[in-house]
């Protein structure tokens, strides 16, 4: 049935010249749209391998004018980049893991009708989506807690997000109660049932949320900008911000030679810097996107 419809539609396309014109326009527009995304990335890639240095507005090139790996060498030899990588990986792994566990546990508790004052606690969580103390009071409070320059400040404040909690709670709620019953008969408590029955069944939604959390941590920079002063604890995004946007390599360049390299070809070293630090996401996202999309479908149906 479905197959026949498709066929019908195709033959219809072949027949009508208006339809063909529509198709040509459509494919053309979409191709142009893709180019607006791909060209900037391609141009930057070209720059990152370019040795020529000086670029003027009269130039136009889509291939390195003189190929070199020196720009990447300047990036790789910068110890701050590696430190940033370390800090970012640390916060991403620890932050994602802790967030996922705590969010799932809380979501499980709130999915149970037997949880005392469930409505109140749900409101307690959801209210944080709509109102907050704001930047300054939060900053002063975290300073008073003595958490400035402490890596925990990158993980704890966002540990349990209301949106993710509601998403997971709704998933738990629509699971058939019979699933847990077998474990209950064996005398398992809530925690045992959660770990041995509920978690394994919920892998798809947990994977989606884990990916959201991981990308969020990898890309986060504002908390580090505000709460971390110690350059050794800077995350990759902040290092990148310093080098690429503020152009202050001096502050985080260790050798005279590296500074020279940067001054000779600032655009190219910056481009290499961007590619070197973004590589993990560029490689991973085409394979992971479907899991992200799945989460949006679930969210939009049951939001």
């Amino acid at each position, binding site marked *: 049935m*479905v197959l026949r*419809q498709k066929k019908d*539609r195709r033959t219809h396309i072949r027949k*009508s010249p*208006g339809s063909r014109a*529509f*198709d040509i326009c*459509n*494919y053309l527009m*979409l191709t142009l*749209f*893709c180019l607006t995304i791909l060209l*900037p*990335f391609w141009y930057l890639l070209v720059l990152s391998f370019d040795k020529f240095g000086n670029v003027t*507005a009269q*130039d*136009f090139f889509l291939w390195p004018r003189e190929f070199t790996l020196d720009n990447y060498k300047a990036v790789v030899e910068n110890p701050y980049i590696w430190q940033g990588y370390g800090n970012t990986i640390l916060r991403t792994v620890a932050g994602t893991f802790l967030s996922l566990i*705590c*969010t799932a546990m809380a979501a*499980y*508790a*709130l999915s*149970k009708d037997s949880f*005392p004052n469930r409505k109140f*606690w749900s409101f307690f*969580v*959801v209210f*944080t989506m*709509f*109102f907050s*103390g*704001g*930047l*300054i*009071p*939060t*900053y*002063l*409070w*975290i300073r*008073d807690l003595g958490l400035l320059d402490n890596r925990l400040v990158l993980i704890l*404040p966002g*540990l*349990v997000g209301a949106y993710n*909690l509601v998403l997971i709670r709704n998933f738990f709620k629509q699971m058939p109660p019979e699933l847990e019953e077998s474990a209950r008969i064996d005398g398992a408590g*809530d*925690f045992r049932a959660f770990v041995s029955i509920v978690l394994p069944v919920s892998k798809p939604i947990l994977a989606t949320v884990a990916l959201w959390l991981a*990308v969020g941590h990898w890309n986060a*920079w504002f908390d580090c900008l505000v709460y971390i002063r110690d350059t050794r604890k800077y995350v990759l*995004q902040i290092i*990148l*911000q310093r080098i690429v*946007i503020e152009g202050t390599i001096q502050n985080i360049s260790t050798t005279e030679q590296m500074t020279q390299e940067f001054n000779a070809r600032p*655009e190219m070293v910056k481009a290499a810097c961007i590619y070197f630090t*973004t590589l993990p996401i560029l490689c991973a996202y*085409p394979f992971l996107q479907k899991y992200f*999309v799945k989460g*949006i479908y679930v969210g*939009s149906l049951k*939001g």
Partner: protein
Amino acid sequence: MEKAADARGAPIHSKKRENGLVRTVKAYGRQYQLVLMFLPAVITIALFSYAPMYGLTIAFKDYALLEGIHGSPWVGLENFRKLLTAPSFAEVFRNTVTISFLRILFGFPAPVLLALLLNEVGNVRFKKMVQTISYLPHFLSWVVLAGILIQILSPSSGLVNQIIVMFGGTPIYFVADPRYFVPMLIVTGIWKEVGWGTIVYLAAITSISPELYEAATIDGAGRFQKMLHITLPAIRPVVSIMFILNSGNLINAGFDQIYNLYNPAVYKVADILDTYVYRRGLIDMKYSFSAAAGLFKNVISFALVLTTNGLVKAISGKENGIW
């Protein structure tokens, strides 16, 4: 409240109240496993979301570093008076609303349009490829994207200006020219999120019954007509919900993007409430003043969200509200 008053006024009721308290404690005790599982969430939310709300009191105080939040003297609405009479604040408020209004005006229809175009693509491979490419900027932070954009838009070495010069134009300094900065924000904002924004609409399109299209074909409708008269009306509920939810953001003009792209040359048009609070508060250390500015923004934002949520519920039924 009532119970507590009773307990203080009439000791006869205190036994009853104690019973209630004991009952509550017992109820939590019986569910101790669930309570323990919920505990990390409660602690971090209380500590990092609710506790700072107490710090909002400094908006009504003259914060002094040595006195702390609690000890600083009250000044009533003095900070708000200063805020509302500051010429810079009027400008910042205007910028915030202008930028987010333009974002809705141009940015909102963009993913709807792209979803309609994608839906008309017969070649599944091509469609998948376009989608994957269009998601790319969504996964990168504004730090990375600003880094890329500053290079691409640079008047000397940027690809865009090279193309402009190739066609006989003169280079435009997009990130430092107040005339071009806001349009640049809008366009690059769309560029980042348009692909990702199509997902929710494409999901709605897949649920349209194929029979509708069949019937229209028999009636001699062209593809453009079908798009206009079947697809678009079918996704209208989703579109209106998304529109309302988007309008809830009218006071959020996009801190991440602006912070990473702006510079003193364009403060006049690009400084928004969030960047203003950040600079006044954390750079100039005018804590009370910027806390007042932040509270001003939060209250408006809260009111907007309540309104939009109410609208969504009214239009599409209770289950579609956020709570």
